[in-house]
């Protein structure tokens, strides 16, 4: 793959978005064109992953392109390394599934207008975040992603949606303000926002002490986006108001981008710096434990499918943060760090597919029964046996039963927790797994297993759901099933071919825990030396002037 072609991951969704705007009045055409673009995008992602994985050595595993031919660290760099390639592949496949679901299940008034354009633009922001090589462009990518999500939040305009969207937008605006403030501050101290360049400074130990609070501020920003404790309060209220297709998209992409950024920024860029790790690792570990445990307790206490799954997103983020924290631990063996990060990566991609799949299942349950309130429905096992089977596979995968994908993610993470003797967080991780199983079984037993309620509220519920814009007037369930089957397929392949996926994740983790090849691929050997010399000179100059004073 010609490395310059990696920009296609931004061009393709953007072009798809533009074409959707041009085809504004032709819904069917928007669906077809959008699906074609998404398939092309997924093919490109698979191609990039194949290129990256089969490359002969660590440096050539990293594809870089300098926008406008301006050299790094001065220009805009985009990079596809193994981590980006994995994230791109899994997210693009998930998006294909969600797109199919949305085009068949979403009510007409959602799907009209600019829904498909926004879908593509959201994806553009997400994919840009995956390939960007500097923090400022990450900010821009976040903004694109968030702006699309703001509109998708209110696209159905029920009263409840607008009320929750107001909170969501306000909090995210606050987050963005903090983000850009932190970036300005960081740029003032380091003179660069290029990821490779910052990582180089962290490796050499030349990060100024005063930059540590700023880096901690970045953790607050990304923590808010990822919804980790104590910054997760916005998520459960906001997500459950949305129809299943959109919330599936958000669950698959938004918080996972946050997790990706946490891995990228804290493991790769600042991980090599001892001072930063010293401050951040305890914070990350405590936050991970509390996030996963409180999240799952919240999920168990809820009684509608979408609410259970929404709060559950938070709990799953805890596992990812746990892996990140263990990947930054000072004094741990490199192999153990790599495995912990690989576990986190595996967990992120597993979660992308499975969580999204469960939301889509929840949506289909509502299509069958008119509601997703567990008190009002039941007997779906007889009514929709296939949906029940697929839901069971996805739910057990989320709970982490072998041989499904969730098991391997948790297995690696818990094993590394034992290696690093982190008993408390390990206990929480196992307890959380049990409660996850409980919350999934709750949906199973109330929704599928129990007999259908005697007084059927189905008709009334269905009317209400349609008027609230949560359901299509004449839903085509087959389309939704295709999406669910696709996602369950991804999850099964991750469970049955776990070794393959873990190998690739480990490859990605290696280039994160030891970012030297990344730095070399982005900055070049010569550039490193040049920058080194100029920095040395600068430091001499400041020493001289200090001497004069």
């Amino acid at each position, binding site marked *: 793959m*010609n490395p*310059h072609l990696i920009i296609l991951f931004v061009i393709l969704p953007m072009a798809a978005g533009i074409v959707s705007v041009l085809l504004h009045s032709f819904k069917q055409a928007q669906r077809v064109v959008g699906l074609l673009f998404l398939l092309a995008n997924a093919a490109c992602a698979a191609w990039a992953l194949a290129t990256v994985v089969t490359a002969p050595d660590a440096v050539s595993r990293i594809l870089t392109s300098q926008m406008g031919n301006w050299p790094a660290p001065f220009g805009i760099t985009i990079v596809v390394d193994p981590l980006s390639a994995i994230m791109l592949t899994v997210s693009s496949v998930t998006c294909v599934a969600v797109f199919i679901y949305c085009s068949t299940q979403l009510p007409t008034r959602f799907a009209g207008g600019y829904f498909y354009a926004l879908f593509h633009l959201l994806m553009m922001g997400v994919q840009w975040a995956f390939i960007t090589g500097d923090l400022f462009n990450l900010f821009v990518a976040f903004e694109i992603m968030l702006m699309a999500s703001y509109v998708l939040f209110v696209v159905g305009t029920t009263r409840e949606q607008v009320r929750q969207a107001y909170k969501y937008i306000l909090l995210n605006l606050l987050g963005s303000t903090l983000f850009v403030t932190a970036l300005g501050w960081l740029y003032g101290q380091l003179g660069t926002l290029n990821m490779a360049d910052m990582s180089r400074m962290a490796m050499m130990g030349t990060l100024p002490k005063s930059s540590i609070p700023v880096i901690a501020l970045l953790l607050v920003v990304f923590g808010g986006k990822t919804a980790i404790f104590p910054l997760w309060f916005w998520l459960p209220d906001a997500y459950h108001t949305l129809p299943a297709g959109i919330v599936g998209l958000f669950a698959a992409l938004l918080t996972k981008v946050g997790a990706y950024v946490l891995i990228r920024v804290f493991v790769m860029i600042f991980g090599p710096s001892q001072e930063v790790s010293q401050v951040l690792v305890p914070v990350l570990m405590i936050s991970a434990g509390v996030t996963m445990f409180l999240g799952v307790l919240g999920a168990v206490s809820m009684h509608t499918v979408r609410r259970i799954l929404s709060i559950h997103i938070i709990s799953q983020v805890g596992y990812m943060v746990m892996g990140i924290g263990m990947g930054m631990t000072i004094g741990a063996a490199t192999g153990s760090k790599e495995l912990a990060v690989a576990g986190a990566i595996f967990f992120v991609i597993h979660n992308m597919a499975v969580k999204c799949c469960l939301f889509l299942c929840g949506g289909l349950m509502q299509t069958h029964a008119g509601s997703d309130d567990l008190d009002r429905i039941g007997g779906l096992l007889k009514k929709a046996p296939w949906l029940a089977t697929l839901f069971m596979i996805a739910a057990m995968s989320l709970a982490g039963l072998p041989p499904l994908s969730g098991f391997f993610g948790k297995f690696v993470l818990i094993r590394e927790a034992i290696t690093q003797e982190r008993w408390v967080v390990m206990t929480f991780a196992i307890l959380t797994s049990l409660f996850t199983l409980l919350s999934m079984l709750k949906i199973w037993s109330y929704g599928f297993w129990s007999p259908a309620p005697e007084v059927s509220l189905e008709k009334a519920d269905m009317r209400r759901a349609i008027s609230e814009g949560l359901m299509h007037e004449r839903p085509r369930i087959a389309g939704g099933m295709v999406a669910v089957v696709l996602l369950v397929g991804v999850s099964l392949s991750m469970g049955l071919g776990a070794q393959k996926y873990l190998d690739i994740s480990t490859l990605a983790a290696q280039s994160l825990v030891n970012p030297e090849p990344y730095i070399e691929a982005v900055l070049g050997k010569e550039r490193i030396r040049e920058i080194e010399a100029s920095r040395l000179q600068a430091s001499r100059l400041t020493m001289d002037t200090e001497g004069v004073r």
Partner: protein
Amino acid sequence: MSTTILRTASRFIVPLGLLFAFFIYFKGHQTPGGGFVGGLVASVSLVVHRMAMGGKSLERMLPIRERTMIAIGLLCAVGTGTAALFFGLPFFTSNHGYLSDAFDNFEWATVMVFDLGVMLVVTGVVVGMIDALSIETEEPDKEGSSR
């Protein structure tokens, strides 16, 4: 809003404003100006036209809808960047040169297409937003709210 004075003046202001917008756009490559400012100036003249002559007249004057304008503008911008890929260069690599003496050695650059895209997007966004907001405040039977 529509008075005889404004209506008469707008006949002069609108073409001059549009011309000035293009002047700023061409000037912008090396000196202050460019697609963004040019787009703002162009949209101000279009808005003046709307104030004087009404929304219907603006609709007749514009050959395309605002959202189409935005989409075409974005396509220009993406297209400029993508063109470099066909020459095996990174996205957004630009090229430039000079026209002959007859054109006063005018310096052209591929970035100008990008800038034209910016101009179209800005014009489309501003005119479209003001149009949409004005329709809300105007009487529905006069303008029709089915845009």
